Structures are given as C-alpha cells and as structure tokens.
C-alpha cells in the first residue's frame, strides 16, 4: 500500500493544513534516498523543491489559493527542462546543461502548486525500451532488481512504484510511458497527440512524441492530465482541451463496445494471454460487449515506426553539435573536427544507430523507398484505426508481449529490443490516446492491459480505464 494515497486526498491534506508541503517534499526526498540502489533518479532538485514547499505552505497559511496540486511532489523524466537540476536526457552530450527556461508541462504543474523533486532516469534521449540505454546507469525493476523497468520512462515508472512521489512525468514516442508502466505495475497514460504541449521537452520524434503521467491510479493520471492539457502558444501542434475536462470521471462499462486487437493476440505469450483473457471476462461480466477486431496493416507498424522515428531523431539531434551548449570535444583543429568529435564522443551507441538509420532513409535516392513509403503505410494505419473505431468504442490488447526481461538480455540485439514496442508503436503513429493499467501478475511480475480510444476521446478513455481498474483490483 502506498504511503501517499490519492493525489486529490494529498492536496486536501495540504490545503487543510493537516500536512505541510514541506513534509511531503521531505518524505519524497527520503524515499528517493532509501531506494537509491534502484537507480531510478539522476538528480534531485532538493534545494529548489524545499523552497517551493515553503512558499506553498506560506500561501496556505495566508489563506491564498495554492492550486489544485498544492504541495504535491512529482518526479520528471530527465528529458523535461526544469529548474533545480541539470537537464541531461540521460546523455553525456547534455551533461551539465542548466536550462534557462522550463517546459510548459512543468510550468502548468507548478502553477497549480505541484513541486518537482527529482529528475528520473531514461534511455538516453528516450531511445529504448529498457532504460539500459541511459549513458549514466541502468534502472532496476522495483519487483525484481535483476530485471529492467521497461523504457524509456523506466526511471519515472520505477519511481512511482517505489513510492518516491505521488506521480511522475514521462514521454511516449513509441510506448515509452505505457511499456514501463506495464513492466513496473503503474498506470501509464499516453494522451492524444497534441493534448499536452511538447515545448521544453527534449524532442525525440516530433510527430509521435507525447507527454503523460505515470501514476498509481487512473484517477491520479486524469487529474495530472487535466492540469497539463490544452493549447500552448509555444507548441503549434497542441489542440484545445476537452470541454468537460478530465476529472470527476463517471461513465459506465455497460453497453460499451470493446474490440480485441486480433493481431496483438496472434502468437502471444500464453501467460500474458491468460491475464488479458481474465480481464476481458471481467469486462464482459460488467456489461461490456467484446468483439474481435483486425487491422491488417498493424504488423507493419513497427517497421514504419523504425523508419519515421529515426528520420525525425536524426533531424532533432542535429542541434547537439558541441557549439552552443552541452559537451564540446577539446583539442580540435577546425569546425568539422569539432562537430565530428563532439558528436562521436557525446552520443551513445543507440543515438548514433538511430542517427545513421534516419540520415539513410532521408538521403536522396532513398527517401521515396523508405520515408515516403513509411508515411503511406502510416496513413493506411490511420485509416484502419478509424475504420475499427467506427465499430467499437475502445480497442484492447496487452501493453507488451512479455513481462519485464532481465537486464542485459536484449542489449546485444537491437532488433529484439525494438520488438518490445510491437504493441505500443501503432498508437503513436496514429496519434490516438492509450493507457496501460495493471491487469495482474505472472510470477510476481506485472502485466499491463492496454486500452486505446479514438483521437480526442481522452475523457472517455480515462473513464473506461477507471472502471476497468476497479474491476481488476
């Protein structure tokens, strides 16, 4: 049982002066310290966090409105630009980068009184599915230290499950929130593309990157989303928030039509299948209608993703050239050598691998064969999802094909590692919202159930997930 309780109850405690923001921050920092050996955290923002806690407590003492998240500590994946510690994206090339501005998501949370206490580990630049690609250290799974927490938001997921803070922020480009949530037993929410501003978050693949919460409950995820969601003048791909907002979840499972994604069950690990099947039965009993849905292009999603994503990665990582910020190689004779050495020494091997793949698929003569074709298939996928949603309200499947694997198990085989994302990437290519909720365990390791909704149906999805979570408890 968590030491925190729900986020809304914490806020109530702080606002009624039952507990102070300072106590919460100290409790959070203490839990981080106690669980240091899981290596979920890159740095704490202790000094600033305590100062902010004092400020919140002062506001409350003076009867001011301290916000809807007053005094609630949270942990941000270290690809969010936030004050109080360096922003590294777990990469050597950004080591020592002291940001002059904060991400919109952080600003919005702070404006409602939340307090960032630490920066969580990730696969460097969010490239990975296990958090082993961090240039600094690998994070351990809270349920089994010999296993990975999933990635790339592995630090955030582990931190939440280890009770280091009531919630954490992650980014999801191909499954990076949902997968670690599934591996660690947290709730991981991937909003509709554009619902949360990407401004101030280190870009991985701009056309699929989204920002979302990792929490212990759907209710918490909904509250955090509600604070972050909506148009941002600094990100022109953002969309208006839903009129009803995302809190006070109601809804009913009765009469909801859920489509089981056939392609995700073909050849699925038997144990994972059992957990998902059991959950499906409960949903049916609760009154949902469950049908099978097939999207023939789905098996191509991973291939499409690993063309489009590296293409955008290679472009987005161009700015890390050693000239204006971050790591810069010494002893160079000219600008070309400075570029080459700074990037060769500053980037880890996964970043280099993706830069090379991306540069290749965008180069003249290959663009049409790879990038353009991938975009064509992407459009096809979008249409197949639309078609599926014309028949069902939600789609359902496992979040990952297996439970958390051993540290080091897949590090020599990038392709095998990429396959971990097979059930999550399509959602990013299509831009629809999805959530992973804990559905059960296999030998003490959590299994995640993934629910997917049409674009902008974030509220409906959260309501559905809220009910599902209740059923699976």
């Amino acid at each position: 049982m968590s030491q925190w309780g729900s986020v809304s109850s914490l806020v109530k405690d702080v606002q009624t002066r039952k507990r102070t923001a300072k106590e919460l921050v100290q409790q959070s920092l203490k839990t981080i310290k106690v669980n240091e050996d899981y290596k979920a955290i890159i740095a704490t923002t202790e000094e600033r966090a305590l100062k902010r806690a004092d400020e919140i407590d002062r506001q409350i003492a003076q009867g001011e409105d301290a916000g809807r998240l007053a005094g609630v500590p949270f942990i941000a994946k270290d690809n969010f630009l936030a004050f109080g510690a360096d922003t590294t994206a777990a990469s050597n090339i950004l080591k020592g980068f002291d940001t002059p501005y904060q991400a919109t998501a952080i600003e919005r949370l702070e404006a409602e009184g939340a307090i960032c206490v630490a920066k969580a580990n990730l696969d460097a630049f969010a490239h990975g599915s296990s958090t082993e690609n961090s240039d600094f250290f690998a994070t351990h799974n809270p349920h089994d230290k010999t296993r990975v927490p999933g990635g790339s938001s592995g630090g955030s997921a582990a931190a939440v499950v280890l009770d280091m803070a009531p919630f954490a922020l992650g980014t999801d480009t191909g499954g990076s929130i949902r997968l670690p949530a599934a591996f660690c037993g947290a709730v991981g929410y991937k909003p509709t593309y554009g619902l949360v501003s990407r401004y101030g978050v280190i870009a991985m693949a701009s056309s699929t990157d989204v920002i979302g919460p990792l929490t212990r409950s759907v209710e918490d995820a909904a509250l955090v989303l509600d604070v972050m969601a909506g148009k941002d003048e600094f990100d022109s791909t953002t969309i208006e928030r839903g009129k009803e907002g995302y809190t006070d979840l109601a809804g009913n499972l009765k009469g909801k039509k859920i489509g089981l994604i056939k392609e995700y069950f073909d050849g699925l690990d038997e144990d994972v299948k059992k957990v998902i099947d059991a959950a499906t039965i409960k949903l049916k009993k609760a009154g949902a209608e469950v049908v099978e849905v097939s999207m023939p292009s789905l098996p191509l999603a991973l291939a499409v993703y690993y063309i489009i994503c590296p293409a955008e990665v290679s472009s987005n990582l161009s700015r890390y050239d050693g000239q204006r910020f971050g790591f810069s190689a010494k002893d160079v004779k000219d600008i070309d050598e400075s570029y080459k050495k700074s990037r060769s020494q500053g980037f880890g091997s996964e970043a280099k691998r993706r830069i090379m793949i991306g540069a290749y698929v965008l180069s003249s003569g290959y663009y049409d064969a790879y990038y353009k074709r991938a975009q064509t298939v992407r459009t096809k996928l979008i249409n197949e999802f639309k078609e599926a949603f014309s028949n069902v309200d939600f789609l359902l499947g496992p979040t990952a094909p297996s439970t958390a694997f051993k540290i080091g198990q897949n590090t020599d085989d990038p392709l095998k590692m990429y396959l971990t994302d097979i059930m999550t990437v399509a959602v990013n290519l299509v831009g629809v919202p999805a959530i992973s909720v804990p559905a059960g365990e296999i030998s003490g390791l959590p299994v995640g159930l993934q629910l997917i909704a049409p674009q902008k149906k974030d509220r409906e999805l959260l309501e559905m997930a809220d009910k599902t979570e209740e059923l699976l408890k």
Partner: protein
Amino acid sequence: MKYIPSIGIECHVQLNTHTKLFAAVGNDARNAEPNTLISPICLGLPGTLPVLNQAAVDKAARFAFAVNSRPEKHSIFERKHYFYPDLPKGYQITQLSQPIVKGGHVEIDPPAGGGGQTKIVRLNRVQLEEDAGKNTHPDGKDYSLVDLNRAGTPLLEIVSEPDIESAEQAKAYVRELYLLVRYSDVGDADLYHGNMRFDVNVSVSKDPNKLGTRTETKNLNSFKSVEKAVEYEIKRQTELLENGKKIVQETRGWDDAKQKTFAQRGKEEAHDYRYMPEPDIPPVELSEDYIKDVEASMPVLPRQWRERLESLKLNPDHIETLLEAEVEDERFSYLPLIEESIKDKEHAKFLANYFVNIEIPMRRGGKVDEDLKDAVRAEIYAEVYELLKSGKLSSTSAKSLLTSLLGQAAKPENIEKFAQEQGYIQVSDEGEIAKIVEEVLGENPQAAADVKAGELKAIGFLVGQVMKKSLGKANPELAQRLIKKQLDI
C-alpha cells in the same frame, strides 16, 4: 551561330515583420549589438519549438499578388539539414514541395528609349524560409565569431524560371523585384544591409530549346553586381565553349574588387540536405476569404502606376525615378499627388517635372524639411503652379522659390507675398526689361546682327543673357518680344 544566354535568378528578401519567423524576438538586426536579438528558440536550445509568425504568412500572401499569382491554400514547411555554426538547429526550416506561392511572373519594361516589348519573367515559386546567423572571421585569429541576431529572420525566396536573356534584363528584373517588395511592403529591401540578396544561374547554348550547363553565382547584393556577374559569366562561358572547352556545373562567388566570378564548389561537393516535412509546424491553410481580403488590401503596384501615368507622356526615366523615390522615404509621396491632378495634365506634368528635378534630389540630399506634410506640399505646389501659369514666376525662379519653401516645415501664409518679398516674382514691367534688353544688345552686337540677319537661333542666347542680367526674374516671353521689337523684326 551565336550563343544564347539563359538566366534564372533566386532572390532572398528579408521580410520587415516585427518579429522573427518562428520566435517572438525582434527582427531588425541592422543596428543591434551581436547576439542581442535572440531567445532559446533562436539558439536552437533543446526542447524549443518553432511557432509560425502569421505576419510573415500575410506578407508572403501579399507578395503573391505583387507577382501576378495567388497564395496557395495549402502549403507546408520542410527541414533542410546541414551543419554550420550559423545554423543553430542543424537544419533550416524552409519550403520545398509545397511552397506558399507557385508560379506568377514579373514584367520588365524595355530599357528607356530603346523600344522593344515588355519582357515577362516567369516565376517558379516564392517560398518562406528562415535566415541563418552570420559568421565573422577576425583577421589573424584562430577562431570565428557567430552572431545569431539574423538567425530565424523570415525570408522570401523568389525563384525565377531561366527566362532572362541578358545582363541588362537581369538588372532590370532585380530592380523590378526591389520595387515590388517595397510597394507591397513585404520588406525594407535595404541592399546595403543585405536585406535582399541574389543568386544568378547562368548558362549559354546555341540551341534555343536546350539549356546549356549552368553555373550559380551566389550572394550578390546589388543590382550592379547582378548585371556585372551575369555579363562576366556569359562572356566566360561563351569563350570556353568557343575554345572547345566544357562548362563545369558549379557554385561560384563574385569578387567585387576584380569584377570577376570565381569557382567555389563543384557539383560533386554538393550537400545532401535530407529534406523532410517539418513535424513541428502544421500545414499552412489559407481560406478563400483570407486570400480575397489580402487581394483587396493590395496597394497600387509599379506596373499600375506606369499605366496610370501613361497619358501624361512623361519621360520614362522620370517615371522610374518617381517610382523609386515613392518608396524611399515614407514621409514623402509623389505619385498620389501627381495622380490627384491628372485631370489637369499640365499641372500633373509640372508636378512630375519639379519632383524629379527639384524635390527628389533635394530630399535625397537631406535638404527637404522632414516635418513637411504631404498636404502642405500639395498646397505649395498648387500655388507655385498658379504663379507660374499666370506668368508671375519664371521657371527659374519657380525652382528657386520651391527650393526655399521645401526647406522649411511652415508654409508662408501667402506664397505670392513671400515670393514678392524674396524677389522671386517675375519682372513683367516693360520699361525695366526694355532697359536690360538694350544693355544686352549693346554688349552682344554679333548675336544681335545674327538675329537681324534671320538667324533666329541666336535669339535664345540673347533671351538667356537678359534672364541672367535680371537674376532670373525677367519674364522670358516679354524679353523675347522686346528683343525683336528693338531689333525691328
């Protein structure tokens, strides 16, 4: 058989928006200290995203109409990748596959007095893109300096088809572009500060249906250098071909001191820019209503002014001077004043003549009072014109009077009185002029004899002498009549 040159020109114009193309940062870097007009976005810091400046879209849409096209309803931005210290993100945000303006054309008039037909230069496209910063390499130092003030400044790149056939046409084309940019208020087009830069693609061929191998001479920043670079390239390429040699497709630079182009980069060294759609900026969608509004807001353009003034039969050079002057200083306008009086052709011509010969040179020399309002100028010209028409002013003293009036912001209450006091009013007193005529005839017996012998040309000389002696105040018609009278012819 002669070699036929084909010239295409790419022109980069900085837009005079208040802020940059993708960041809310000041855009006019002309007098700014290095790296003062920057933000996290201009620096390409991690996490930053571009947000398109609507004002730049508005300007591009206006320019579409200036070049006889219409803005596209759907256009997209793309990334062009290369590493250079003045390019913070490692890519330039530009347009490639679906630019904001497609097609269009620019009309250039035949050279003054040369006859011939209006030349149509077709445009391939006009695209929006961001400028890069500026690198400087201090002499004798082992480092370079980067100023990112200009990084992210909105540019229009105007790409012509290879329709231009001579250096003279090339110059006329870029000058016309300059006027279009100024008239549509798209940019300041301050050539001295590099607000407008040109790349010229030149090839020559004997076959009018087949283009030869081209060279691209980059970064020309004046009309003159465009003309000279094209002229040089045509000559260089023609000579190479005549000597049985081949043209190498390459990028060339322009050495202004030597007035020569020089090789910079071969085709094989060309970058692969790895273009891709810009995922951070949604496509630009323009509605029909928006496009119509832009069209309705277009000002009178140079070609329309030329048509409107056609009936005055002005000297073509004068029209061009007026067109240029009109956009040199927004405090002073000329063409609307001329147009207002176009029903009175003589008055309109008088204005054009005095603008070109008196006021514009004066204003360029900083001698026209800056506080002089257009309405006051209109009154001054109207009154001076009346005095001139009624014979109270000679054209010489009209010029002097105007010079004096334009140099002061306040208009005298009564210009005629002022002219009287200042001694500008023409002497039409027969007795006074007769006296001067007598003197002049006495001093120039040969000319007087010539006139008497029927050589009437000499009479102009004598009138001139009378004008000189009267310090320009004599009524020349009266002077001529009196000369004839005194010589009994």
